[in-house]
């Protein structure tokens, strides 16, 4: 009941705001215990009927002891996880300029479409005659990806970007083996600026890694690549646009050099969002490229997955694509699930990949169309350059003051002597209500700060971000180091002790030891 009669209506005093609370909560910011501290073994939030009486057929394998799980009723469950969610920063909370990660708006239409029972509630092994619509959606997604990249084949099944990388590199390995060069071609060239997944992927399947140095302007030169080429080289793994936010100007020449030497060109497609509709990897000589549907095509990151990493393949690699793949038989689509009788190199995952992500990506692509996808890339690049231009006089750029692609890269030269590090700056951004940019990556740039605003930010949002960053930069230069070195001050937690976590790993909850009298 709201009744203004007889109660004070003025704002009151603003003093005394800093006192600790009894609960540890601060109004909307609520502390929340671990599930295992509040749950009970005999509590459940799911009503299930008693099972019908049957003659048990478990052999002798019925569980003997308790599992050690606890439960909560439905209202308690709801409150527990809602409170936890409120300790998270998401794209819907504010700007998320995490370079290389493409944290763009996640349209809710995608979520709605992915939940249609005709997509969400179909079994991967039900008869193919009963899932023709799903296979058509996969075919459509493949068609869009192949058209946007000018590549003749696609393997949809990889579960994430690194998994797509693995599939692409496996196709290369299979193609080399088919040529009878498996024993001799064992080296993969990887620039020092590459994502960590690139060398890890190459090493995982038995390649050795040879580093390619970057030029003074942050790009890879064909002359450098040629120096490293030989009959032992299987492929190069190159990110384009690269991790410094620059388009590799000699990429086509590098592709030609690789092909002339009998090797392949793997392109890391993590930064595809910069160039969709502007140029096509197939025209640049790419043999394989994964596409992170969770970056370029807006499927949600979900706090660390699930992703989806289809890989497009050139004519040379297409025959080696993994199962399952689609085949059209008249008006019917067929999913080929067994490698025998084909050159397919094998299988990446139990079923057909991330269908739920295919639907979301398709909803995004259909919404944008050819025109909207190009506009999105142009806006992404425009926004990154707007930020670059807005900060260039205060923050240093490692490769000079040139236009970038979809992300702007700064180094920590400008922080020299301030007592503030890149990490401190990132944590101070948290206090200003921003998710930090990517930092200390790429490794080739000292104290790197990689800012990718994406096309989702409005001009007003960018202006406020630029002003906030300028204010932080000036504060650092003016000697207000304490604003940075103790940051964040206003997040649900202060800086966490990662050293302690790694030295004495506590990876699950264990019951507290009972207190015994001495």
């Amino acid at each position, binding site marked *: 009941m709201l009744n203004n009669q007889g109660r004070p209506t003025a704002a009151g005093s603003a003093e005394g705001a800093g006192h600790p609370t009894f609960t540890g909560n601060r109004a909307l910011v609520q502390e929340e215990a671990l599930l295992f501290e509040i749950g009970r073994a005999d509590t459940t939030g799911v009503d299930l009927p008693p099972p019908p009486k049957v003659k048990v057929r478990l052999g002798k394998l019925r569980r003997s002891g308790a599992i050690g*799980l606890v439960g909560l009723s439905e209202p308690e469950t709801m409150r527990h996880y809602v409170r*936890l969610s409120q300790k998270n920063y998401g*794209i819907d909370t504010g700007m998320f300029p995490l370079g290389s990660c493409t944290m763009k708006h996640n349209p809710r239409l995608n979520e709605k479409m992915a939940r249609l029972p005709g997509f969400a509630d179909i079994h991967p092994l039900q008869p193919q005659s009963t899932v023709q619509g799903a296979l058509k959606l996969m075919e459509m997604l493949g068609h869009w990806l192949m058209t946007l990249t000018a590549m003749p084949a696609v393997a949809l099944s990889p*579960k994430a970007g690194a998994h797509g990388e693995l599939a692409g590199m496996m196709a290369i390995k299979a193609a080399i083996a088919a040529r009878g060069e498996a024993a001799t071609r064992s080296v993969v060239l990887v620039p020092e600026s590459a994502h960590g997944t690139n060398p890890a992927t190459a090493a*995982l399947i038995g390649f050795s890694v040879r580093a390619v140095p970057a030029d003074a302007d942050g790009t890879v030169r064909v002359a450098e690549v040629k120096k490293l080429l030989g009959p032992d080289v299987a492929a190069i793994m190159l990110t384009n646009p690269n991790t410094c936010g620059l388009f590799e100007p000699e990429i086509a020449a590098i592709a030609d050099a690789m092909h002339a030497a009998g090797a392949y060109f793997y392109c890391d497609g993590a930064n595809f969002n910069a160039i969709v509709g502007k140029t096509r990897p197939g025209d640049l000589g790419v043999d394989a490229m994964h596409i992170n549907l969770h970056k370029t095509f807006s499927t949600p990151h979900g706090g660390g997955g*699930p992703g989806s990493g289809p890989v497009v393949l050139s004519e040379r690699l297409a025959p080696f694509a993994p199962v399952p793949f689609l085949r059209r038989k008249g008006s019917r689509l067929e999913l080929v699930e067994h490698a025998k009788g084909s050159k397919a190199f094998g299988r990446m995952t139990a079923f057909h990949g991330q269908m739920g992500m295919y639907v979301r990506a398709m909803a995004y692509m259909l919404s944008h169309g050819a025109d909207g996808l190009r506009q999105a890339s142009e806006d992404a690049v425009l926004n990154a350059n707007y930020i670059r231009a807005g900060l260039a006089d205060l923050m240093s750029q490692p490769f000079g003051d040139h236009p970038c692609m979809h992300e702007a890269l700064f180094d920590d030269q400008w922080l020299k002597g301030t007592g503030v590090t890149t990490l401190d700056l990132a944590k101070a951004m948290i206090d200003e209500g921003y998710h930090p940019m990517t930092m200390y990556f790429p490794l080739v740039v000292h104290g790197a700060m990689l800012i990718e605003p994406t096309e989702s930010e409005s001009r007003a949002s960018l202006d406020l971000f630029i002003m906030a960053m300028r204010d932080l930069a000036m504060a650092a230069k003016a000697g207000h180091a304490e604003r940075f070195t103790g940051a964040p001050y206003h997040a649900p937690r202060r800086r966490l002790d990662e050293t302690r976590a790694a030295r004495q790993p506590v990876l699950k909850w264990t019951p507290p030891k009972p207190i015994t009298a001495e």
Partner: protein
Amino acid sequence: MRYLPHSDADRAAMLAHIGVASVDDLFASIPAAKRLKKLVDLPLARSEIEVERELARLAAENTSAGSVPSFVGAGAYRHHVPATVDHLIQRSEFLTSYTPYQPEIAQGTLQVLFEFQTQVAALTGMDVANASMYDGSTGTGEAVLMAHRITRRRKAVLSGGLHRHYADVVRTLSGMAGDEVVTLPADMTAGENLIKALDPTVSCIVVQTPDVFGNLRDLSKLAEACKANGSLLIAVFTEAVSLGLVESPGAMGADIVVGEGQSIGNGLNFGGPYVGLFATRQQYIRQMPGRLCGETVDASGQRGFVLTLSTREQHIRREKATSNICTNSGLCALAFTIHMTLLGEAGLTRLAELNHAHAVDLAERLEGVPGVEVLTRAFFNEFTVRLPGRADRIVEKLARRGILAGVPVSRLLPRAGLDDCLIVAATEVTTEADRAGFATKLKEVL
């Protein structure tokens, strides 16, 4: 375009601020000959209404498992997911957040992962679990590589009861890495002797229980033999609900446990996204793949959580990492944890009993159909039957009569000569009428 905030006036003003004449000037680093002069050949932008119409039309061409009696399993299972789960995972702060590399503003995700790891460790009977893998099959591939790192041997033996697609994933990954894989012949009745396959070069034995044909397997003796041989036992499951009723692989002596967690909290989704569960013994944690969440304190002494032991991972170790995995299956792990929280020990046990009872009831009904033989003696919610005819044809006939009858063994093993065998699953969502109808209609089509 509704997702793009700028007006043309905004764009013009921003270009002027940057100091370039047109947006194409920002793309000048792309060689002119490689720049697209016109739009790619794809349809133009569409409204929300139009997109919804087109996708709904495709969805309607599929027979959703919930619209008919369904008995399809073999690695993915249709269970009831409480409405609370789907609501919570769509909270913006969970759905649109990133991998929790900034722990001060990601305690929500991190605490969930810590709870997830605790639940998975308890369920599998192991010391520690990671923060998830892509799915059960890729997790199995990683488990084999992990066993090779620990034992410094390079040969894996795969049971004939392991899901054939899982075996294919292992063989693909191991084959590419240059490691040896021995796959035993299909074993429908759990009669194979895995102990005999052990020799001093064997790094690990991979065995699934309940296996792909539904057999529950006692791993205790195999675990002892592996230990004596210096080999690791990798136990795999594809039906997480079974662990509510059946002895855990940890209790039977497994060294690494890998499973598919889809059954808890996650829908069928035509095969993905799913969530791989991965657990092991304490002494092997530094050889584990994937992300791990650990407890610590913040600068003011308050408990908090961070991703930890990241020196195993690709972004730090690059080519020396334990795996190339980066993204995992965070949101599906969240769904798993919320559903498991709702169930609790009591609910999971009840759910598992219900699954088993429905499967036993179904087996009894199918045993009553002339010519049909149930081949699986001890099972949880899935078993294999021999039919008097080709299973794939019978499944097609039943599909036309509105029943999704199961997975013909020939779909997984086309050359095993098991064309008359069918893998059948029943869960808590199959009703008595569904089960009775299956038996009746099967009789009709035989």
